[in-house]
């Protein structure tokens, strides 16, 4: 009987120790995870955010909102500004105003991998030696001439096509372009030909357009079931793929 009493007391002691006496951090991962979360949340910010900049620099913000740079946060160009917000009189923390060409060319220099339509210049030729800000206001940049034709954005295609026998063809010969595409390019993409008929209009043996007279084929036998652009580049038809 006494032995049973000791066993019961020991069992209770173990249970009480495990569930009531030991601190949770010895048993569960939750407390140290919560401490990590608290530590992460307490870390200092270095970027203040555009809304904070706006509180003092409303004019620049409004100008920027109406221009092509509206999507760019202030701290993209001026650098992390939380120190400037904390102490606006500290000259060491004043955000820099970049005036050098290389700074603008970081985004606007020509790189072939950049998406079509993104405004790019050849930094070696475009008004060499002149600072970008003498012509373009960085808060409301305007291109020299508003973009009219397709080549404003699709320069690589335009330059290729200009050298080819298709140089006299308008882009709209093969692509239907909606007005919306000129305003918001990616919300309304132009069509691309899907059938051989697109080329057959000029290149079939029965076609009548005199411009393509030297390049007519019997399309019922030529190329079997392949579509034309699997072998020919419509923007440079002389070169085959």
């Amino acid at each position, binding site marked *: 009987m006494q032995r049973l009493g*000791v066993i019961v*007391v020991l069992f209770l*002691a173990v249970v*009480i*120790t495990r569930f*009531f*006496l*030991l*601190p*949770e*951090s010895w048993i569960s*991962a939750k*407390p*140290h*995870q*919560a*401490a*990590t*979360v*608290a530590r*992460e*949340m*307490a*870390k*200092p*910010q*270095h*970027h203040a*955010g*555009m809304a904070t900049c706006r509180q003092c620099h409303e004019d620049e913000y409004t100008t920027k909102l109406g221009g092509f*740079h509206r*999507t*760019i*946060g202030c*701290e*993209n160009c001026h*650098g*992390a500004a939380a120190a400037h917000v904390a102490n606006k009189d500290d000259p060491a923390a004043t955000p820099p105003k970049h005036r050098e060409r*290389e700074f603008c*060319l*970081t*985004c606007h*220099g*020509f*790189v*072939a*991998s*950049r*998406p079509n339509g*993104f405004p790019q210049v*050849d*930094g*070696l030729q475009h008004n060499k030696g002149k600072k970008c800000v003498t012509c373009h206001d960085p808060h409301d940049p305007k291109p020299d001439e508003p973009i009219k034709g397709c080549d404003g954005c699709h320069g*690589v295609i335009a330059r290729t096509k200009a050298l080819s026998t298709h140089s006299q063809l308008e882009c709209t010969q093969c692509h239907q372009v909606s007005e919306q595409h000129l305003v918001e390019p*990616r919300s309304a993409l132009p069509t691309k030909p899907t059938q051989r008929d697109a080329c057959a209009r000029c290149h079939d043996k029965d076609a009548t357009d005199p411009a393509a007279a030297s390049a007519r084929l019997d399309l019922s036998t030529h190329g079997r079931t392949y579509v034309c652009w699997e072998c020919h580049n419509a923007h440079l038809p002389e070169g085959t*793929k």
Partner: protein
Amino acid sequence: MNKRDFLKNSIVFFPAAGVLSALTCQAEGKELSASMTTGYDASQHWYGMGVDVDKCIGCNKCVEACKAENNVPGEPYYFRTWIERYDIHADGEVKVECISTRTPEERLAQQNQPLDPSVVRSFFVPKLCNQCANPPCVQVCPVGATFQTRDGVVLVDEQRCIGCRYCIQACPYGARYLNPQTHTADKCTFCYHRITKGQLPACVEVCPTEARIFGDLKGKQDRLVRFQHDNEISVLKPDLNTEPKVRYARLDGEVR
């Protein structure tokens, strides 16, 4: 020790342990209260990021902003987010180059290069920790230093991390690195100190073309939710079932 002594000592031991544990719990409470006072409820959020590959211009501003915001070492080979340039050639060969490992001068020198005629597609892909819903790095950590928060962000406890690099090996996206200053694993936190105060991560804040979108997948009217509705969405390495919360729009099939 006989039974009588044992029972006598027990009478002293249990109250003493009680006092000690009370002290420990109090100290813990002080650390926990920091997160309680901000009034931020993590269970109401499930954060993610949208990346529109078609908009990235490869300016590397996101990488620089991330380094400034999170004290990432300045050397170009340490980063929490980075940009890759993909060149896909006509013969099917894919060349991948991490432009973030270049210096700004090297990137400027790469401009105005004519397009190699054998390249059929060329584009930039921003990458970062995918904040997987099913993260392999958390599974492998031997000390439980890395974990997922209730709002879906994978964090590293730098006081518990022993720097064994197991998680760096386990991450299929190469998103982790060993911080040379703390000798612990470090990774993107979605700028946890910013998003919990309602601000955007630094990379999203500075992205000039809105190629990166930050949002809350639990929010009904959230920008990221709309982004997912409006675009055809892919994730990186879907076959691994890591369920990434970084969602890509217009991602080329060659991107790994």
